[in-house]
């Protein structure tokens, strides 16, 4: 097990295009780090530089205190799960898992013991003699993980390991990976473009955009205290709504009426002309369903609902609004960068599933103004970010994790003791 430190890592391709640009990132020993971003942001390239499949143009890659820039992949002692699993089709499951051990000339008895152990963890026993071609997608995925855990590697690297599975299996494997990582307590770097995986698996998440790190923080901090427009728009599904706003004293005028800001946030945005206010869908509610006690904490507004989507446990309403041209083009660029195509300026609003708000009618909504963020539309910077609160959230996540790891490992020891 080892920590991974990246110092000013740059990856430049032949044409001078920097796929990864000046990335510095410290991954602590035993930490679960997620690299996330839209396609083409350099997350996979970064992972492949850690494992050594991609040359590093400049900067230092330090694993376990040793600079590994010039080491071949096999000398780095890392294990990796590929997106398409890359199982060896001519070998049985047993030999697939044993492959790294065979290469290191481990003796037969030891190979058998370690493969059996890995197969125990992944419940692959009845498949050991089969060939990968005869396995289902989830089983292949487990074999790929078996090959990774059989060796005592310094760290695990995952390159979008679940993207080839269907949604149900993906959920199962996600919890499986999380449990495995806690149990083995091994440093893990996990590349994904999936929101849910990023939010649920990671101790910390590193958001990349065009080869540059935007923010590295716990999922909660990313969600509640995003550093800029990009992170705010990327994290969260459905995404955060960005409304044009003009400050007037302590309040912002938005298409959905005035938004009241507290002293601190008002000071942060003072003196600017045009702003973007970021509001998560769940900060909205059907006004008729809001408690009297909560009502004064937000503002009320009336708007015409374009479409509603009822999903059983929740309900979304789409509210179109007018925005100045400069904002519209800004938002369109952002959504394109986030791999989506926003055709019209509309707010997505999460309302209670019992709400009877109808499509095409005007309705009254309530907006919780306590947690809205205000962004500078040109630089994208979050003007109202509370760095301290964010750091507190990440701190809390770290403490939680330490506790979980301890518990998971104590549980494992307990079972071992029980077995003995």
């Amino acid at each position, binding site marked *: 097990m080892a920590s991974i430190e990246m110092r000013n890592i740059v990856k430049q391709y032949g044409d001078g295009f920097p796929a990864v640009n000046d990335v510095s990132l410290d991954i602590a020993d035993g930490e679960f780090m997620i690299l996330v971003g839209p396609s083409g942001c350099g997350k996979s390239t970064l992972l492949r530089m850690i494992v050594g499949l991609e040359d590093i143009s400049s900067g230092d890659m330090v694993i376990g205190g040793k600079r590994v820039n010039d080491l071949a*992949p096999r000398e780095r002692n*890392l294990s*990796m799960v590929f997106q398409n*699993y890359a199982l060896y089709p001519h070998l049985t499951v047993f030999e697939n898992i044993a492959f790294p051990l065979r*290469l290191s000339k481990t003796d037969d008895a030891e190979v058998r013991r370690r493969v059996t152990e890995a197969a125990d963890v992944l419940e692959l026993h009845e498949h050991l003699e089969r060939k990968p071609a005869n396995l289902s997608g989830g089983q292949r995925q487990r074999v790929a993980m078996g090959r990774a855990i059989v060796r005592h590697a310094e760290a695990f690297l995952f390159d979008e390991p679940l993207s080839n599975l269907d949604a149900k299996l993906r959920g199962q494997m996600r919890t499986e990976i999380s449990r495995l990582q806690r149990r083995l307590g091994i440093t893990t770097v996990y590349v994904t473009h999936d929101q849910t995986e990023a939010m649920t698996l990671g101790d910390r998440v590193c958001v990349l955009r065009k080869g540059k790190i935007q923010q590295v923080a716990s999922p909660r901090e990313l969600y509640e205290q995003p550093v800029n427009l990009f992170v705010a728009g990327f994290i969260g599904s459905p995404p955060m709504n960005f409304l044009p706003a003009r400050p007037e004293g302590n309040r912002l005028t938005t298409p959905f009426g005035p938004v009241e800001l507290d002293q601190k946030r008002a000071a942060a945005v003072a003196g600017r002309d045009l702003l973007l206010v970021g509001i998560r869908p769940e900060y909205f509610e059907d006004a008729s369903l809001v408690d009297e006690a909560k009502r004064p904490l937000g503002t009320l507004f009336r708007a015409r609902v374009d479409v509603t989507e009822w999903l059983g446990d929740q309900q979304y309403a789409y509210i179109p609004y007018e925005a100045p041209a400069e904002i519209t083009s800004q938002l369109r660029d952002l959504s394109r960068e986030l791999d989506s195509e926003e055709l019209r300026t509309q707010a997505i609003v999460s309302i209670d599933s019992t709400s009877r708000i109808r499509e095409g009618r005007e309705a009254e909504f309530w907006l919780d103004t306590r947690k809205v963020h205000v962004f500078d539309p040109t630089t994208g910077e979050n003007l109202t970010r509370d760095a301290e609160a964010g750091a507190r959230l990440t701190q809390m996540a770290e403490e939680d994790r330490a506790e979980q790891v301890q518990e998971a490992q104590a549980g494992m020891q307990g079972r071992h003791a029980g077995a003995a």
Partner: protein
Amino acid sequence: MSTKEKTWWYVGGVAIIIYALFPVAWIVSLSFKAPSDIANKGFLPTSPTGENYSTILTGTASDLFLPALRNSFGICLIATFISCVLSMFAAYAIARLDFPGKKLILGTALGVAIFPVISIVTPLFNLWRQIGLYDTWLGLIIPYLSLTLPISIWTMSAFFREIPWEMEQAAQVDGATTWQAFRKVIVPLAAPGVFTTAIIAFFIAWNDFAYGISLTSTSVARPVPAALGLFSGASQFEDPTGAIAAAAVIVTIPVVALVLLFQRRIVAGLTNGAVKG
């Protein structure tokens, strides 16, 4: 598929099989005819005889045929083996590495492949005589390599390109050197490709006539196709048709056997299951 369509497929298939196999059947039938029976104006021999086979295997023509058979096997197998090994490395480099002159190599290989054999036979004849390669095994293996290598490189690089890059990278991450990754992962996966290439290369070498007849003079190195042309009848008034037919049948057997033996390996998509299904 409708019944009507199916019927047409069957009719078409049978027609093609007859068209392709009729000459073979004719040769087989010829090989069982006695010399006096050859002009019997019938497809089947009047009374089947093994005379032709005994002539070439034990009789008068055996001095010509048996050494030629041995030469053909030896020369073709060695040429096939060398060309497979060389083209495996060449094709791997072409499929995996990005180096200047890659297109040039492939282009040259193609150019060599389409170069007419007959135009270099005469210069080779002179050169071989001067450097002592005339009428030797090596003197045939080298030109056979020029025939088989280009096509081997082309087919093999197509097979290597099919193997996902990740297989090799996974092996490297698992602790393999480049050579180990090649030997333990790439070669087993490319096996169907190697077999296919080997069979094609063997056929090309086996079927050669121009080099065989021009660059040899004795039974030291003369291959079968050349030897067939030198058969003579029992007397100068008699054609050795039956003996040639019998030899042709024998020469065809290894080719057919090879295909039957390896067809499953050729067809088997071994990479199936390597990546997501």
